[in-house]
């Protein structure tokens, strides 16, 4: 439609920056992982040894499946709740919608570590508000973090809680850019709200939904602060997910070769996931 090269000039500045800051460090990181890293410096060339050693670790399989379970549930619940909230805010009009939106984004705008610590203190700590109230109401012996299942549930809940604000912003922006007359026309034609939502709104939200799904999946797969601060991976291995594994290798055992290898493998997995999402959504660029 337009001249073929004009487009390229528009994207060159963006790609130059991405190349410098995001892409080239990956190549450097890969080169770095081909060496035995001692005291933070590459020493002998060992090829893919760091990667092969990953396969020798019997715990990684469990970690991977836990990461999967965690991410699936966290993303699913975040999207469902955020979608419901966005639709509601959309219908509320400008003033009230703005207030609700402010309330919704509060957990998201507080720095992750502080937010997780606060949530933990108010809702999880046995000397915190929530459990003290529960005890006064007669509920004793509530096991939260020392039970494997409830620890994982709590981790999912906190991850959802933290990210809903972000999802709402994107979905709301998407909702607001759908012309109102589409829905008006359908209403006039006699459709009910649910049909309108399913047949008109959702398909037009495909791009924001895809963006939210991808970012939430990647964020939950890669972020270490929330699980580290909330559960530390415990009890036992119940909430030990991939980012904790990378963190431990890098900063506890100080095995940078294996940490970088694992990080790169995860990064590759991330890219494949993104491509899979795009393909599944039959999304045309």
């Amino acid at each position, binding site marked *: 439609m337009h001249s073929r090269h004009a487009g390229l000039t528009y994207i060159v500045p963006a790609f130059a920056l991405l190349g410098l800051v995001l892409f080239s460090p990956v190549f450097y*990181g890969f080169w770095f992982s081909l060496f035995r890293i001692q005291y933070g410096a590459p020493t002998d060339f060992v090829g893919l040894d760091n990667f092969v050693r990953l396969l020798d670790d019997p715990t990684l399989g469990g970690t991977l499946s836990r990461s999967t379970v965690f991410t699936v549930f966290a993303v699913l619940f975040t999207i469902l709740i955020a979608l419901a909230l966005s639709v509601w805010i959309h219908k509320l009009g400008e003033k009230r919608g703005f207030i609700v939106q402010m309330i919704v984004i509060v957990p998201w705008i507080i720095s992750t570590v502080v937010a997780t610590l606060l949530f933990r203190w108010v809702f999880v700590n046995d000397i915190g508000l929530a459990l003290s109230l529960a005890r006064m109401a007669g509920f004793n012996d509530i096991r939260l973090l020392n039970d494997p299942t409830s620890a994982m549930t709590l981790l999912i809940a906190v991850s959802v809680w933290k990210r809903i604000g972000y999802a709402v912003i994107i979905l709301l922006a998407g909702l607001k850019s759908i*012309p109102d007359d589409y829905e008006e026309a359908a209403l006039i034609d006699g459709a009910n709200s649910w049909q309108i939502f399913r047949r008109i709104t959702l398909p037009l939200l495909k791009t924001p939904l895809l963006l939210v799904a991808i970012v939430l999946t990647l964020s939950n797969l890669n972020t270490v602060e929330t699980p580290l601060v909330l559960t530390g991976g415990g009890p036992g291995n119940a909430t030990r997910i991939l980012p904790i594994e990378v963190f431990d290798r*890098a900063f506890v055992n100080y095995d940078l070769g294996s940490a970088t290898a694992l990080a790169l493998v995860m990064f590759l997995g991330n890219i494949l996931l993104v491509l899979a999402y795009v393909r599944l959504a039959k999304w045309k660029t």
Partner: protein
Amino acid sequence: MNTISSNRAAAAPYVVPAKRRRHLIGVSGILIACAFTALAVLNLLPLIWGILTSLKAPSDMFRFPPVLFDFTPTLDNYRRVIESGFLGNMKMSLFYSATTVAGTLVLALPAAYAFDRFNFPLRGPLFLLVVASIPLSLGAAALLIPNYLYFTRLGLTNAWYTLPLIYTAHQLPMAIWIMKGTIEGIPRELDEAAIADGASHFEVLRYVILPLSRPAFGAAGVLTFVGSWNEFVAGSVMVDSPQLRPIQPAIYNFIGFFGREWGPLTASATLAILPILIVFALLGRLIVSGLTKGSVKG
């Protein structure tokens, strides 16, 4: 296609139709009210608790059972935070976030425009590359040490432009995608009409696309600001001088080696969310108010 454009031209300013409004009362209304209360409690209680904690003296902090209001408030924690140079960190973070927002929007809009409106070689794969670089910005912590070595070798660390460069790159993929999504919804007839009137591509971008991209600017702007404001890893590793430090490492300093000090920690965290709330108050309206009607006439 034509019917819809003419419908849009005829659309009246947005008013919630009476039929839709009635829907919210009744059973669904009560359900929604309950759900909203639960949401408000879950979201606001930790924040309120944090603010209350920031006003407590050390001896009041761990009283058991926990006290909500029965204590003498003190501004001591805030004084400590400010005396340790926190306002300087806030200033730096404002600088970093503002430049990141500006840089991101300036780079993302043309790129999104190009991806949607132009057909150039490798367009598909290049866009997939943008999408695929989202994990790179999210998984930054994993490749921390190699990244640090790489940037040090390039001489890019510990300068005033270090963090704006890094943050802009982190936010760019998402911003491009959001903008592209909005530009997709802008009818091409508008472009064609402008070109028929003799506009260049750039003028189309400036006078047709730009004004209609406001929700995207709002969304991308808020996301970029919050993303760079709350970024911790690069902020603590890539810069060393105290004068260049953003706020997250400064807050984190209160989760110190000698134990987390809840007083200054919550005080600094409270101070840190104020600018975000302001930015959201300014830019967030762009998201909520939606497309401006009336600027599009047949």
